[in-house]
């Protein structure tokens, strides 16, 4: 479980997050949705500590993350996996070295063991025979998948994904969504995903949090989202024709 309590974050006096309180459940794919610029990335980065918040508390299970020291945070972070909006693969390293990186840093496994683990992670994201390639020679979707493989390399307890399928075709998007969903349930972890893709919401939105202008406007499940009377959320949801059609067929 990850819990945020009354989070505030501003940049040079410009408020971005305002009084955000939300709980993300274990063993679920928690989605943060909202328009571009609404503060999703800032919220995600604040949760993992890449931004220092101005006020508020962040809990990882029973640990108050915002009160931990630098060293304690480092320790907790070894249980966090994160997929970045742009992939953020290390361009100085091959695919194999990228996925192996957390193992090199934090385990004393033998090379054999590490290779085995790398291959099983890559298999999980359905990538084969790319071990020796550099990230620059992979397609965007493949980079995202390597990013996921690296994020799950050490069996994290918490998984964060910033727009895992932006810039991907609908088919690959669904593959990646399902992959994250499957990993979440297999490893029984807390997963938080940023997205503005209604397809993802309908596919894997077990818990959905709607952010609008830096505030939490609504939360619920994908079943509830089509029948809410929250105006801002309706504008967001029904901007896509697909959602309208879904609602109509549901009637």
């Amino acid at each position, binding site marked *: 479980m990850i819990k945020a309590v009354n989070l505030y974050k501003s940049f040079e006096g410009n408020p971005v997050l305002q009084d955000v309180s939300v709980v993300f459940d274990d063993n679920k794919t928690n989605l943060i949705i909202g328009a571009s610029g609404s503060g999703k990335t800032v919220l995600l980065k604040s949760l993992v500590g890449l931004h220092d918040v101005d006020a508020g508390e962040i809990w990882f299970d029973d640990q108050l993350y915002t009160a931990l020291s630098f060293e304690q*945070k480092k320790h907790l972070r070894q249980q966090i996996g994160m997929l970045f909006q742009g992939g953020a693969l290390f361009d100085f390293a091959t695919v194999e070295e990228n996925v192996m990186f957390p193992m090199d840093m934090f385990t004393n496994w033998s090379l054999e063991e590490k290779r085995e683990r790398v291959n099983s992670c890559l298999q999980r994201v359905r990538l084969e025979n790319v071990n020796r390639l550099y990230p620059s020679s992979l397609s965007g979707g493949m980079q995202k998948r390597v990013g996921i493989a690296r994020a799950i390399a050490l069996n994290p307890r918490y998984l964060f994904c910033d727009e895992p399928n932006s810039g991907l075709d609908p088919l690959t998007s669904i593959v990646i969504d399902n992959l994250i969903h499957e990993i979440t349930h297999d490893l029984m972890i807390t997963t938080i995903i940023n997205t503005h893709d209604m397809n993802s919401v309908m596919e894997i939105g077990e818990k959905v949090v709607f952010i609008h202008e830096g505030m939490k406007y609504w939360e619920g499940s994908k079943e509830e989202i089509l029948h809410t009377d929250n105006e801002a959320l309706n504008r967001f949801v029904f901007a896509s024709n697909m959602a309208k059609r879904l609602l109509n067929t549901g009637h």
Partner: protein
Amino acid sequence: MRKIFTLVGQYFLLMEKVLKKPDNSTVFWKQFVQEVEKVGLSSVPIVAIVSIFIGAVITIQTTYNITSPFIPKAYVGFMTRETMLLEFSSTMIALVLAGKIGSSIASEIGTMRITEQIDALEIMGVNSANYLILPKIVAATLFNPLLMLMSFIIGLCGGGLIALTTDVITPADYIEGLRMEFKPFYIVYGVIKMATFNFIITSISAFYGYYASGGSRNVGQSATNGIVSCSLCILIFNLVLTHVLL
């Protein structure tokens, strides 16, 4: 003025994160070897070329400047040696390196910053500043004083080539000059200067890269700012060290 103080404060805060025991020493030594190659060995050709030409030019200029018959010709060798050792092989070579390795460090780390690779390191629980910057600082500070010694010797050879191939000065006079009143401490002085300058180059250019933001244009801008600040600091510390050590 306040901006400068903020920058300096930020720099020392970063160094506090950098100068820590590495998370994983095996990984550190592997990186160290790679960095010796990147910040040191790869600069051997440029340092060699610059040094041989400058050694030759100093020899010719000194000869033509000694017009008085009372000054023995051997002083040319002596002057070449002293100029190379005291100033050229450390300060000038450091300024050349500031341009070469400073810009590559700033843009390498800056690119990692804007493509979120640094965030990715942090999220894994790696001290990114320590992981990325410490190997470069240690490699340059320990290894590059050897470049200074190399530059010194090659510079003297440059002067020697002039003595051998032209009639500006005889080889015998030149060699006599090289051996005149040699103070071994000057070598120590040169090495200390070079080590300090290389600490400055790597840490300051890494600092500018680490705090790059925005797009690729900003990375280029940080690299430029890095080189300018490195060069200024080298000149200031040259003055300070010379005052303290000599």
